[in-house]
Structure formats: C-alpha cells, structure tokens
C-alpha cells in the first residue's frame, strides 16, 4: 500500500500533523505528540531513502496535475540523503533542547521544530521553484521564532538580525524566479533546465537567485549576521541553524545551479563563487582563531565550512557534487555535536570562555569525546565524514586541473586544526580550582555523542551514502 511516492507525501505530512496536533494538545501532551510524530517521520524518511536506493528516482505530481500547472516532487539520491540527515540530526538536537531550555520554552520549541522539519523535508523533495520559496520562507520564520524562544535581549537581537538578512534574500530569490517564469513560462525545475538559454534574463535571474541564497546560507561577503545570531540564540537552536537550516538554502542553490544555470552560464561565474568560498574559508578560520568565547569560535568555523561548500561551483562535476553533499551531511552531524557539547559545558560550568573546557576530559567524558570527534570531522582527519568529503573534493580539484582549490582545502584544514585543537587542548589540563560542576542529565550528554558517532560512521562506511548519491546524479 505504501508506495515510494506515498511515503514521500507522508515524510512531509507527518511533521506538519505533529506540529498542528502538538499546538492543539496544549501544555499536557506536547512531548508525547511530538515524540510520536518524530518517530513516524524518521521511519517515513528512511523508507523513502530505501525506496530511492532500490528503485531509483521517485517522482510525484501533487494533486494529480502535470508539471507546468501543478507542483512536482523529485526524490533522487541527493534528496534521500538529505532526508535521512534531517531525520537523524534534527531529533537528536531536539532531545538535547528539551533539557537545555526551561519547561515553558520547550512547549514552543517542539511545534516550531516540527514545522521546520516539515519545511526542510518539503524543500528537499520539491522540484518547483516557487514552492522552494515558500519552504525557504517557512524555514526562516520558524528559525526566527526559535531564536527568540527565550525572550531575552540577545535572543531578540539575534532573531531580528537574522530576519532582516533572510528577508531580502528570499525576495531576491523570488524576483529571480519571477524573471525565470516571465521568460520560460514554467516554475518546474526540470522543465526550466530544458528551456533555459543564455540571455540577459537568465543572467540576471541567476545573479538574483545566487545573491539571495548566498544571503541566507550565508556566503562570505554577506555573512555578517551569522556570528551575532549564532551566539545570541540559545545553543540548541544554533545547532539547528548551523546544521540543518543553513543547509536548506545551500541545497536549493546547488540544485538550481547544477541543473539549471551551470550549462548556460560561462565558467567564470563559478570561479567567482569558488573564490568567495576560498576567502570565506580564510576569513572564518582566522577569526575563529582570534575568538575567546567558545560559541563564537564554533560560529566562525561555520563561516569557514560554508566556504568549502562553495568550492563545488567552479568544478561542477558529479564527483564534486558527491563531495560537497558529503561535506554538507558530515558538517551537519559534526557541527551539531560541537554546538550541543558547548551547550552542555555552558550548562554544567557556566563559563563561556575557552577556559570552560579545562579539565573537561575528566568530568564530562562523553561531551569531550563528542567535541573531539566533531572537531576531527571539521578538520577532515581520516576516521571521519569530513575526510571523505575533503578527499572527494581534492580528487576533483586535481582531476579538473584546478589545483588551487586543493590548496584552499589543505590550507583550510590546517587552520581548522589550529582552532579545533585550541579548544580541545585545555580539556587535558586538571580541573581549575573553584569551578563547581553541575551534573547534567545523561540524555544531554548522549545527544552530542550520538551526533559525533554519526560523523565518525560517515567516515567509516562511505560506500552506502555514495551509492545512494549516485542515484539520479545528473552528470
């Protein structure tokens, strides 16, 4: 009864139903309803991934109408892998968030998280440009509402700053889509790919879409909102933001760029994006090195890691695509575990400076292990997903004779090693005197560890995700 296409529908409908019901149920049963909805969505997502890996690309025409008129879904390997990542990383962070935020705030956190989950699943599956706009907007508003869940001044400032940078991003994207619709009379990404020719409309539309999504991802020159937002927001929300929500807009950019714009635009534009990515890597790493607050270091490292992701555009081959998606997935797991671990430290010791890590290895071994494994994946040292991504991207950069991207990758990972070990170094020192350690619930400690183990697992068993990614790869 549950055909592949029906499962796709359920993977979007279930979190939406969960969110609405958890709002309806009110204070009493929020956690129960949210829990059931999460488990159901996890199952649906993994079944979709299984169907895609066995039967290849799945398509669904919503409402039974054809492509140009109605909205179509397309689940290829890339979408299936993203579905899995969201379904695994998201709930782990939300489990941590339940204890981290007070009980009052977790009633607002769960419905909002389920809405965001529905939006991300919808975004990953949708093959309609305007529908992508609506999902992006739903993710952004959900993220803003999450950032301000604590109602304190830094949270509000972070939320407003994020909103006022994400809004113009969505509007630029919408104007780009409007031009594309104006020129080619269709909103379906697949049909756009066939109809798009080089011309002023396409260049301007591509420019607008790229600028818009670079504002939201954020790429280097437009990233000014990231550090204050990531530090102002409560830590589990920052984990969600950095691991999943910022990946949504990058996913849209990647899909539009590789399938629609790449064949039409000349290579220089790709090189420009690659260059911006390289500068982002340098800028993010150098600033991460100079921070004293733990959370800001990890926030700036996000700027650097996003810089890596933009290296895919100059070398638009299927290998680079697999590499960058692998980076997205392993960065989601690793960065989420780092942020959640930082949250644990802040909760247990109350120190936000780098010194807070001192003696961490003795009093919170799981959190330390999570940060270590997460850090290793960020740097790209072997037993981690980060390494596989770095390996694939390096192979592609030398394969396409663009060896300067290899320099960026290698230099970047050295810088990453600098700031990751700067964090981890302190944990071997003995416990500083006079620091009282509040014991934090086990659930809180296991969440980052589970995320870090995912990043490790991605490093040990890369053939499964890579086979899944190969399904429906365009070129």
């Amino acid at each position: 009864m549950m055909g592949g296409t029906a499962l796709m529908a359920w993977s979007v409908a279930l979190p939406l139903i969960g969110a609405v019901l958890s709002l309806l149920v009110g204070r009493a049963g929020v956690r129960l309803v949210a829990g059931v909805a999460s488990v159901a969505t996890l199952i649906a997502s993994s079944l979709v991934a299984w169907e895609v890996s066995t039967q290849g690309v799945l398509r669904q025409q919503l409402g039974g109408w054809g492509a140009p008129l109605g909205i179509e879904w397309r689940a290829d390997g890339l979408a299936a892998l993203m579905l899995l990542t969201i379904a695994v990383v998201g709930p782990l962070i939300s489990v941590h968030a339940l204890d981290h935020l007070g009980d009052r705030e977790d009633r607002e956190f769960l419905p909002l998280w389920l809405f965001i989950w529905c939006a991300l699943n919808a975004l990953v599956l949708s093959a309609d440009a305007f529908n992508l706009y609506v999902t992006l907007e739903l993710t952004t508003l959900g993220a803003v509402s999450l950032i301000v869940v604590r109602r304190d001044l830094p949270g509000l400032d972070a939320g407003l700053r994020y909103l006022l940078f994400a809004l113009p991003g969505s509007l630029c994207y919408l104007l780009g889509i409007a031009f594309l619709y104006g020129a080619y009379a269709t909103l379906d990404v697949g049909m756009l790919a066939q109809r798009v020719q080089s011309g002023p409309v396409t260049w301007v539309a591509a420019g607008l879409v790229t600028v818009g999504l670079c504002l939201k991802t954020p790429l280097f020159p437009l990233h000014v909102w990231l550090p204050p937002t990531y530090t102002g927001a409560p830590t589990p929300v920052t984990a969600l933001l950095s691991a999943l929500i910022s990946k949504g807009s990058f996913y849209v950019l990647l899909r539009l760029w590789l399938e629609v714009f790449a064949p039409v635009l000349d290579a220089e534009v790709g090189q420009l994006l690659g260059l911006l990515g390289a500068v982002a890597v340098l800028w993010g790493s150098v600033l991460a090195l100079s921070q004293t607050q733990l959370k800001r270091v990890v926030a700036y490292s996000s700027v650097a890691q996003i810089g890596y992701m933009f290296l895919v555009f100059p070398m638009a081959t299927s290998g680079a695509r697999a590499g960058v998606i692998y980076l997205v997935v392993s960065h989601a797991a690793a960065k989420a575990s780092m942020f959640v671990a930082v949250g644990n430290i802040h909760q247990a010791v109350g120190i936000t400076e780098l010194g807070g890590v001192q003696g961490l290895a003795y009093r919170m071994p799981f959190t330390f292990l999570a940060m270590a494994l997460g850090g290793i994946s960020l740097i790209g040292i072997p037993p981690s997903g980060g390494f596989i991504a770095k390996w694939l991207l390096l192979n592609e950069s030398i394969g396409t004779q663009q060896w300067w991207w290899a320099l960026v990758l290698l230099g970047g990972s050295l810088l990453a090693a600098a700031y990751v070990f700067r964090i981890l170094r302190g944990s071997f020192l003995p416990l500083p005197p006079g620091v009282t350690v509040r014991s934090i619930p086990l659930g809180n400690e296991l969440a980052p560890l589970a995320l870090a183990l995912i990043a490790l697992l991605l490093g040990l068993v890369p053939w499964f995700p890579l086979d899944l990614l190969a399904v429906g790869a365009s070129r």
Partner: protein
Amino acid sequence: MMNTWLPLSVLLSSLLPGLIIFLLAEEQRRTRTVLNLLAAVTKLLLTAVMAWGVFQGRQYETRLPFFPKADLVLRADSFSLLFITLSAVLWFVTTIYAVGYLEGTDHRSRFFGFFSLCVASTMGIALAGNLLTFFLFYEMLTLSTYPLVIHRGTPEALRAGNVYLRYTLSGATLLLAGVVLLYSLTGSVEFTERGALGAVASHRTELVVAFVLLIAGLGVKTALVPLHGWLPVAMVAPAPVSALLHAVAVVKAGAFGITRIIYDVYGVYLVHDLGVMQPLAIVAAITILYGSVRALQQGDLKKRLAYSTVSQVAYIVLGVSLFGTVSTIGGLVHLVHQGVMKITLFFCAGNFAEELHVHRVSELRGVGRRMPLTTGAFTIAALGMIGIPPIAGFISKWYLGIGALEAHQPWMVVVLLTSSLLNAGYFLPIVYSAWFQAPREEWKPSTRGWEIGLLLLLPTVATAVLSLAAGLFAGAELSPLGWTRLITEREFRP
C-alpha cells in the same frame, strides 16, 4: 580463502581492548592489566601464525568496501610482517613496563586506551594494502599519539603537544596532497611488488612532485633533518610513551612508509630513473651526522637518546635509498635492530629516572654499583648502537657499508664511520662514568630485593638480551637478518 580474517583480527586484537579499556573505571586496575596482557599475547600468537603462513608462501588479505572505486585492503606480505613482529614483541614488553612505571598515577584507563589505539594504528600502517588505507592509519596514529604526549597535563606537556601537532598535521597535509595526486593519476594505488605506477611512468613531473610530497609528509614522522623538531620536544611524555612510540611505532612508521613508497608504489627502477634516490640519500646522510652531533651536546639523557634516534632512523632511509640489494637488507634489518636497542636504552633511562630521579647525563656517575643490571643492559645496547660486534647494530652497519660500496657511493662509508665514531662519542662516556667513577654521594640502597621493581627490570633485561640474540643468531633463518634477506629476495629484486 580461510585466512582473509587473519589480518583484520590482528588489527582488532588491539583496537577492541583499547575501546574496552576506555570504558573501564580508574580503579579496575586488575581487569585493565589482564586485558592488556591478554591482547598482547593474542597479537603475538596471531603474528606467529601469520609469519609461519607467509614463510610458507601463503597470501593473507582482507578487503573491506570503502569507496566505490577504492577499497580498504589489509594485506600481510613478508615486509609488513617484519614490522608487525617488531611491534608485537616490543608492545608486549612495553605494556609490562608501562604497568610498572605508571603504578599510582591517575588517568591510566585513558592512557592504556590510547596506547592500544596507537598500536592498532601501527598494525594498520604495517598491514595497509594500498596507499589510501596506509594514509588512514597514518593519520589515526597521529590522533592516538597526541593524547599520550600530553598525558601528564602539565603546561610543558601541552606546549610539546602543540609542537607535535604542528609538525605531524602539516606533514599529513603534504602526504595527503601527494596521495591525492597519485590517485588522480592512476585511480587506485595498490602496493604491488616492483611498483604500481608503471602505467603512468610518462607523467614525469607529476610523479616527481608526488614523490617529494610523499617523502616530505613521511619525513616528518621519520624525523628527517628539517622536520625532526618535534622528536626531542616530545620527550616530555612518560617513559613508556617515548620508549614504544618515539623509538619504535611513530618513527618506524615513517621509515616503513618511505620504504613502501619507494619499493611498492613507485618501484625501485622508476625512482632511480626519476633521479630522486640520490637527494634522498644525501638528506639521510645529513640527518645521520646532524643527529649524532646534536646528541653530543645534550645534557639530558632522554634528549640525547632522542637525537640518537633521529640519526639512527636515517640509517634505514639511507639503506633504502641506496640502489642495491645489500644496502636494502642493511636498511631493513636496522629497522628491527635499532628498535630493539633503542627501546632498551629508553627503558634504562626510565629506570634511572624512576628509581634514582636521575635525568642528566652528569648525574649518572657510578650508577653501575646501585643498579648493575640496568646499567649492564644500557651498556649492551649502547655498544650495539655504536656498532660493536656481536650485538645487532654491527650487522646492519656492516651491510649498509657493503651496500654503499656496491652502489658506488664510497662517501657513504665515510659517513657511516664518522657517525659510528660520534655514537661512541656520546655513549662511551656514559658507560664509563656509570661503571668506573664513584658517585658524588652514596646512592641510598634499594628498599626491596631487586634494584628496581621487577615489572621495570625484566623488560629492560629482556630487550637487551634480544638485541644480543639478534646479533649472535643473525645467520638463522628466522632471525631478523634472515627474514630481511627473505624480503629482499622475494620482493625487492632491483
């Protein structure tokens, strides 16, 4: 094939106990020690079985899926077995030593956990069947040794850790660049006898660049001259760490890697043809001399041993980079001999520090009376290092000398001789002052029966005997020399 699981089981025999030890609480001393020794014994047995199998000519290979077009391969050939036997034996001895040495300190679960991970990665390096697997375990070695270097948690330990990381990570980056360059050329680099790059021999410039990158990356761990800075600094680590890791596992991994690159990746003819053998030999020679000279100036005993390691490991690189079977035998056999002798020296240094709190060479005056056995072991190993027969060191230097002549490099012999003189220069005064000079003030007698705890004494004596035996029974089939002759005859016909 039945024996596809053997290489994997050797690897797991130290990986699994390591992970379990991590979870053990600090007080479970007994279970931890039993687990450690059990793991060491099983590894010895498995290695013996594999050695016997390889001796009969059987092939052991575990192939695990990793990338769509590149697998994780663990293959036990004769050359990898040389390194595995060395590591297995010395790890067994050092575990006993470490249990004794770390009596009463804290965080031992963490120490032994990383210690076993470290040996597991060394096993992985030895068993690696292709360049990718080799690189994976090479990096894991760095990760598992870093916590050991900074185990004491003191600020100097952290500074040493920084230096260590700075060197090894940049080295790893160079290595990665080389490996990726080769992979993009050939698609998959399997270790095959007489080199796997025959097909792409035409891309000369890329090959030379890749070779330089690979050797530079491996050179960091081999502590070749410009890249050796981390070794003396890392001596701040506890004695068992500096003994097993910086005398055997880490340093030899680099040398082993260089040998693999030259013989199994490029093939000795291609390397010779590319003309990179000569510069490598020159770098090795410079390292030999530089290491010995700096060792002379060191007042601290462990620093002196560290610099002597720098120069001794360069012997291996020298032997391997000379174009000839005899010098290759010399280089490879020195891999084993130097390991055994150097570990004895480090054990003795550890004993002196632990028992008499003696760190500087000048304080060693008259220590022979107080700790005769340890000093005896020290003397045997020191003489072996200098190259005095019948101890193992002599044999490798002998073969190296003849190999140098055979490869028409007479100036290499001069280097070998001067270095032996320098070795004498920094070892003999210690031996002399230990035995023949009266101590400044009387050593307080040892409280218990033996001069030092049995757990510390036995390993020292055992390794000294081993280095002596390796020298005396060199002619036998299964001795290190015999085994190296088997390797060269089977795999490295130039």
